């Protein structure tokens, strides 16, 4: 496949770009294989052109077109001269898209035909395939507006002179933004000058974590049973397992867990030696199958008489129903030392819909107070935030207060499970709250742990495409971290800015960090060899400073958040980032930086410099002399 095939019109002059809260600018629009650029020439010929827009096309979530005809009588079938063209729903107005290659071919360079450009269903108007001159003349004075709704929730409008250009631009953007092949994505082409390719890729995060805990306990070992991804395709090659359990036991236990996700160590609580494990659901099925190796594996975690907790992120009802499809949950009789707790957390489609509804409500400026609060309630996003935080608190409580080990799983063990284990670690472990530690946590508990980013973040809140496996679990996690940062403003080393950047990059990125669904895919795509790591970029000193929290002061304690509704707020910095002006809040942060840095310099000045001045004054006596 060639990108050039997808680009129908590469440049258009005199395009007007507008977005909320900013003055509109006119300039030349350019489409490259991965970017949409708009450059303007403010001062005529001599002036260098200014780049006003540099948009990664992958960031585009939905394209909407509106055409304005000015030199053409209104066709009788259309009530007004303005045709609003709804986004095409596959399977309604247009023929369904050919299924994109999935599975193993996904990371291979596909040579299949590009996805159908979705612009044909203009209704009364067919875009000119071959340029006939009478038609061109008729359309010369027409123009069109393209609204680009981005995955980072930004909304842009491009007013494009010429209907054909408008349609071409729209279809090019649609085609380019829906290229699904990983290796065609921008990270494989992005080569920033300041970075080297291999920089910043975390070296074996699981191994590193193991080294830390090996200093404190000998109960656990590093297993390479999954080194060729044969036991569990979504686990990394190295996992941490009980020292007493053999590789063969692991292999058998894996067969009893969905996706082969046998229980592995997620977190070691140094204060009392308890651990948090995670896994997929046990495949008990309708016949209540048992697996001796799985029971042994879990049994080996607890000493005689010790009790552990299984936190199932589904309702008891849902867990029971899962038996019909081969899944299930651990029966008390087979796992006598483990007490099961059900804490249902939403995921999958309902969570995606919650996100979509929330964003719709946020963008609806016509709402009155009551309607706004009603929609905030009915989208249930904040309920999900509260539930996620509560469940993470429960897991943390089991470890820290009850001094019991915990196993967390839902169904696949790649979504709500990771949400809970990652949040619980942030609550318990001060080391995770530094910039470095947080990166490590994301690597271990999200990226290496096999959260399917490619599937979950394929579309954001604006896309009208048929939902497949999209779900904003990672966004929900970031939101919960933001809630923690609001309740403990001194305890996280990073700022809101980092969370926003992570959200943006999970959905569309210049970097390879969030590509693919698991380590196996990343290896096949050679992500680490051929793309740059986001962490390398963020770790550059000048970038890093942008993401630091000026108020940070290491807090060795557990940070227990309040989960009362009064304590949970809508994350305006994310959901209203492009809607409200942040000028006054930015100024407040600048002021905080000034105060915090100022108080440091004040200390320095008043002690060091003034002291040295006075000491260098020969007339100033010292204590000894007096």
């Amino acid at each position: 496949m060639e990108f050039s095939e997808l680009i129908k019109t590469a440049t258009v002059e005199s395009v007007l770009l507008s977005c909320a809260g900013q003055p509109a600018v006119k300039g030349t629009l350019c489409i490259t294989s991965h970017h949409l650029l708009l450059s303007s020439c403010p001062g005529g010929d001599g002036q260098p052109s200014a780049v006003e827009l540099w948009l990664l096309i992958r960031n585009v979530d939905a394209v909407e077109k509106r055409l304005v005809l000015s030199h053409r009588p209104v066709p009788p079938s259309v009530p007004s001269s303005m045709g609003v063209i709804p986004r095409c729903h596959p399977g309604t107005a247009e023929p369904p898209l050919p299924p994109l290659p999935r599975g193993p071919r996904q990371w291979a360079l596909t040579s299949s035909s590009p996805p159908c450009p979705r612009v044909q269903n203009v209704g009364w108007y067919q875009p000119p395939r071959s340029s006939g001159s009478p038609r061109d003349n008729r359309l010369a004075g027409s123009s069109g507006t393209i609204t680009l709704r981005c995955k980072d929730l930004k909304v842009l409008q491009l007013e494009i002179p010429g209907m054909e250009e408008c349609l071409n631009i729209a279809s090019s953007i649609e085609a380019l933004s829906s290229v699904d092949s990983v290796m065609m994505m921008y990270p494989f082409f992005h080569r920033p000058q300041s970075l080297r390719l291999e920089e910043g890729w975390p070296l074996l995060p699981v191994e590193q974590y193991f080294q830390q805990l090996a200093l404190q306990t000998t109960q656990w070992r590093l297993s390479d049973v999954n080194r060729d991804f044969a036991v569990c395709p979504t686990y990394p090659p190295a996992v941490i397992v009980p020292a007493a359990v053999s590789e063969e036991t692991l292999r058998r236990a894996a067969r009893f867990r969905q996706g082969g996700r046998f229980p592995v160590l997620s977190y070691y609580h140094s204060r009392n030696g308890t651990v948090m494990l995670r896994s997929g659901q046990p495949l008990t099925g309708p016949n209540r199958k048992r697996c001796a190796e799985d029971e042994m594996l879990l049994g080996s975690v607890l000493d005689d008489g010790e009790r552990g907790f299984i936190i199932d992120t589904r309702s008891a009802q849902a867990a029971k129903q899962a038996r019909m499809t081969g899944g299930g949950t651990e029966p008390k009789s087979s796992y006598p030392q483990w007490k099961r707790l059900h804490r249902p957390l939403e995921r999958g489609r309902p969570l995606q819909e919650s996100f979509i509804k929330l964003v719709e409500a946020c963008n609806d400026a016509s709402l009155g107070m009551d309607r706004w609060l009603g929609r905030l309630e009915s989208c249930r996003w904040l309920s999900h935030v509260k539930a996620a935080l509560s469940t993470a608190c429960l897991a943390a409580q089991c470890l820290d207060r009850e001094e019991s080990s915990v196993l967390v799983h839902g169904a696949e063990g790649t979504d709500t499970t990771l949400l809970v284990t990652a949040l619980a670690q942030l609550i318990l472990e001060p080391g995770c709250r530094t910039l470095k530690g947080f990166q490590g946590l994301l690597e271990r508990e999200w990226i290496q742990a096999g959260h399917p980013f490619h599937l979950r973040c394929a579309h954001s809140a604006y896309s009208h495409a048929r939902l497949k496996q999209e779900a904003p679990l990672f966004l929900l996690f970031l939101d919960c971290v933001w809630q923690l940062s609001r309740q403990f403003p001194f305890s996280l080393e990073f700022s809101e800015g980092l969370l926003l950047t992570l959200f943006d990059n999970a959905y569309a990125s210049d970097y390879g960090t969030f590509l693919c669904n698991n380590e196996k895919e990343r290896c096949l795509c050679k992500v680490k060899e051929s793309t740059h790591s986001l962490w390398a970029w963020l770790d550059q000193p000048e970038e890093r400073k942008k993401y630091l929290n000026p108020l940070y002061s290491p807090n060795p304690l557990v940070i227990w958040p309040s989960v009362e509704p009064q304590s949970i707020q809508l994350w305006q910095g994310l959901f209203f980032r492009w809607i409200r002006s942040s000028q006054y809040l930015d100024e407040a942060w600048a002021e905080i930086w000034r105060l915090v840095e100022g108080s440091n310099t004040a200390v320095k000045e008043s002690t060091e410099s003034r002291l040295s001045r006075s000491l260098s004054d020969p007339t100033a006596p010292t204590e000894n002399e007096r």
Partner: protein
Amino acid sequence: MEHITTPKVENVKLLDRYTNRKAASGTLYLTATHLIYVDASAEVRKETWILHHHIATVEKLPLTTAGCPLLIHCKNFHVAHFVIGQERDCHEVYTSLLKLSQPVKPEELYAFSYNPKMSKDNREIGWKLIDLKVDYQRMGIPNDYWEITDLNKDYEVCNTYPPEIVVPRAASKATVIGSSRFRSRGRIPVLSYLYKENNAAICRCSQPLSGFSARCLEDEQMLQAIREANPGSPFMYVVDTRPKLNAMANRAAGKGYENEDNYDNIRFKFIGIENIHVMRSSLQKLLEVCETKSPSMSDFLTGLENSGWLRHIKAVMDASVFLAKAVKDEKASVLVHCSDGWDRTAQVCSLASLLLDPFYRAFKGFMVLIEKEWIAMGHKFSHRCGHLDGDPKEVSPVFTQFIECVWQLMQQFPCTFEFNEHFLLEIHDHVYSCQFGNFLGTCHKEREDLKIFEKTHSLWPFLLQKKQELRNPLYRGFTAYKELQPNTLPFSFQFWCGMYNRFDKGMHPKQCVLDHLLSCMNQKIKLEDNASELENKLPFLDGPLPNEACFLSKVGCAASKTPMLNTPQDYEGEAPPVLTNGISVGDINVTSDVDQRNKENLANHRDLHLNDSVDVLNSEAKDGKPQHH
């Protein structure tokens, strides 16, 4: 005192509203002014003080096995749930509190017995701190168009207005008197704020007695005079802040609103802010939501929506923004009224002034604003706050809404106010506490009759003394921002947990940025003072310099250390003893030591730094101790 039959009850439990933490057990005392609860179970002596005037309701709940529960709701949204062992004790405390919390005679109010041991002179200086004439001068009044008149010196024009009012120069005495007969309770149009840049004014009054067809020539002349005092605009707005339906209903009672046909060049507009009864019941519903035990997110949001509270807050803000825009952008004067012009009108006029003029966003300006638009213009604090035993239908959270609107603005504009949230809460507390004279009575005349100025103290100097802890560390000064244009989309209004759940500490952020920044700032100021101290000392050769400098660097370390505040809601014990300003106990000793040295040094070199004629009260505020130059 005659109301107190049982001054002390032992073995009283205080239940925590939200968590299932072990209930505190201790002793309850009743004094002439406060209910005091001393927690005996805690390691550190912990006291809960409740001012009798703050008590809104006292309820005796059905007897339980633990004892007899007594539930107290306060006007500052504190809720205390006691369990008293003996039914008889409970009943006596209950009857005492009922009487103590609802005095019948004004002389029983706390302000008349409050004695902060301040000299008579200082008390009088305190009352003169806020001078409204100075504020009118600041606006350039008197000028060619406006004058301060004493037509109301004997309260003949309007007995709920102050003796001095600002009216257009062009309005004759006959016009003023005539207009007053056509306005409900004689509350004629007077100036509230003059926007100097373009001469557009905000004026306020009560509804006209127009009924279905009545007219009044003088009133029409009065409005014309106001319009003509702003030659830059050919028209003026007349804003009725009531919902149209309410205003129309008033016509049947011979009141109503201005007929556009009878007044030259006015643009008439309704802005639907609901009346005091709707607001009272809205707050009631909001508080019920706040008190629900472990509500789900949906319960809370639905409750918040159904209370309508934020909708009302938004309505007040929308109206104020309309006023500010009319004045600033359209350069038109605005006359505002509601029914009597002392509730909604006060809210809207004061907020619009706050949006237009940075002066009112500073400590002193905010005090002026409250004195001017609320106290002087006759907002009936006594009735709205239920200071005395009276008609419960007169009680309404009108002032609370104003304070909340200011807080909402603080959220949007964190660097534009000189003061912080605590300042608002302090004022709100004292509006109900009756500890100071400012908010007693219903109008200026009544306060004179009560001899407030002779017998009580003013709140403002008391607050200025606490300026250090009430300031906003992010304030960027007077000139950084001029007019504010707040976003009034619904999402910009947040539930104010710090007010309505203020006493439920578990819900608040566990680490307080404000306190931290304040201590940063105070340390900085102290260090700078100290540094200049050292510099000034150098020529005198009288200090053990290096020692002091080392000592200072220690302070520096302590200052940069962040307080480690961490109170999970389910901790068994209380939070580690961290003082409210966020500095740990160790730091305090160090700093107070510095303080001590500071003062000693000040005694030696006072002339060096304090020779500037700082106003008396400000320097008092700075050192927390009166100094006489």
